[in-house]
């Protein structure tokens, strides 16, 4: 009983740790229960190493069909490559294209907006100096007065709008292409990722 009581206070973890090359606790020599535990742990470890195991139930060689699905060639391989998590190029590229496209769209939209406000202000200023009572077309909604601008003012505004149109259209087209390319790349990545299946 005394042995069992004292054995309960001995460090069983240290005896297990000694199997991995740690120093053997002194209790293994002095306590019979610790000595038996150490011997049993050694025997179990050796048995785990050389236990008979079930045999492999089937051949695991890859058939050609499975191999083609796992590493597809041609365009499927390309789609799979850009869908993989290891691909560090296409995602930033797609995000950049989308960003540039959006920025381009904003740039083409902002001058038009500032033109309409700017021309409205200019025309209002012009009408006050010339004494023309008719306010500019852009002032509608800002001033709350639904009035008709003079024909000359409208012509001047349209002329200046048409003058900046070719450059804006090119930028708009380029932005749309960039946005579409980036979005397509993101969609392809998204669609490609789930196609990677084990079997």
């Amino acid at each position, binding site marked *: 009983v005394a042995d069992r009581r004292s054995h309960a206070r001995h460090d069983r973890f240290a005896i*297990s740790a000694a199997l991995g090359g740690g120093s053997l606790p002194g209790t293994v020599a002095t306590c019979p229960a610790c000595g038996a535990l150490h011997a049993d742990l050694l025997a179990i470890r050796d048995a785990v190493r050389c*236990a*008979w195991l079930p045999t*492999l139930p089937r051949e695991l*060689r890859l058939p050609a069909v499975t191999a083609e699905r796992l590493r597809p060639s041609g365009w499927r391989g390309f789609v799979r490559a850009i869908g993989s998590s290891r691909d560090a190029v296409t995602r930033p590229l797609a995000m950049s294209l989308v960003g540039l496209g959006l920025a381009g769209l904003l740039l083409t939209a902002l001058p038009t907006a500032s033109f309409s406000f700017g021309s409205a202000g200019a025309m209002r200023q012009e009408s006050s100096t010339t004494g023309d009572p008719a306010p500019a077309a852009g002032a509608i909604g800002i001033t709350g007065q639904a009035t008709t601008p003079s024909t000359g003012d409208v012509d001047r505004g349209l002329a200046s709008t048409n003058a900046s149109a070719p450059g804006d259209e090119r930028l708009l087209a380029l932005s749309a292409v960039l946005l579409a390319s980036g979005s397509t790349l993101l969609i392809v990545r998204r669609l490609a990722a789930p196609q990677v299946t084990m079997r």
Partner: protein
Amino acid sequence: MLDSPRFTSASIAVRRDPPTVEDLRSTTVPDDPVQRRDLILIERARSGDLDAFNDLVTLYQDALFALVVRMVPDRDQAADAVQEAFFSAYRNLEAFRGGNVKSWLNRICVNAAMDTQRARKRRPVQPYPELEDEAWQPKAGDETDPERIAIHTERSRALAAAMAHITDDQRTAIVLYDVEGYDYTEIAEMTGVSLGTVKSRIHRGRLALRDLLEDRMELFRG
């Protein structure tokens, strides 16, 4: 299977050669003929030679199954896990950065086995349903003495049943440490837990095995 010279030498090779991270393809040619052969097969597989990859499968499937079946106590699920590991290896051939091919495959297999363990927790099955199966019999020629065969078979069954009763984490840690020869740090890295947790799992697992087998220890002595 485990007593075969091929498996024994492969296990020792893993213990003595920790996985390396450098790319051996462009710098050095390994002196070890087994490694050289494996690297050649990998290169050929990368260039689309399926037969080369299947040669690797044939070379390592038994050893990898022996590793996984200790971690996943179900023969068919263990075979599935090894199959998944080979699929994963084939799909990620480009990710192999040189070093020991067997260690690379071992790590993939350990991950596949842990995935299977997690799946088993969701869908539990009877552990070792094929305990009475002929598959447990030793290979012809390994043992000749019927009494020794009987003792060895009984010991293996008792051990398998006890292994099935400890936790998956403990079993994995014990197999990786005691059988595969990985050190604590490598196991911590492979299983994604701290060093202390690995040690705790190994020691608790061993003590749990001893408690489970206490009444049958005569099978293991001598």
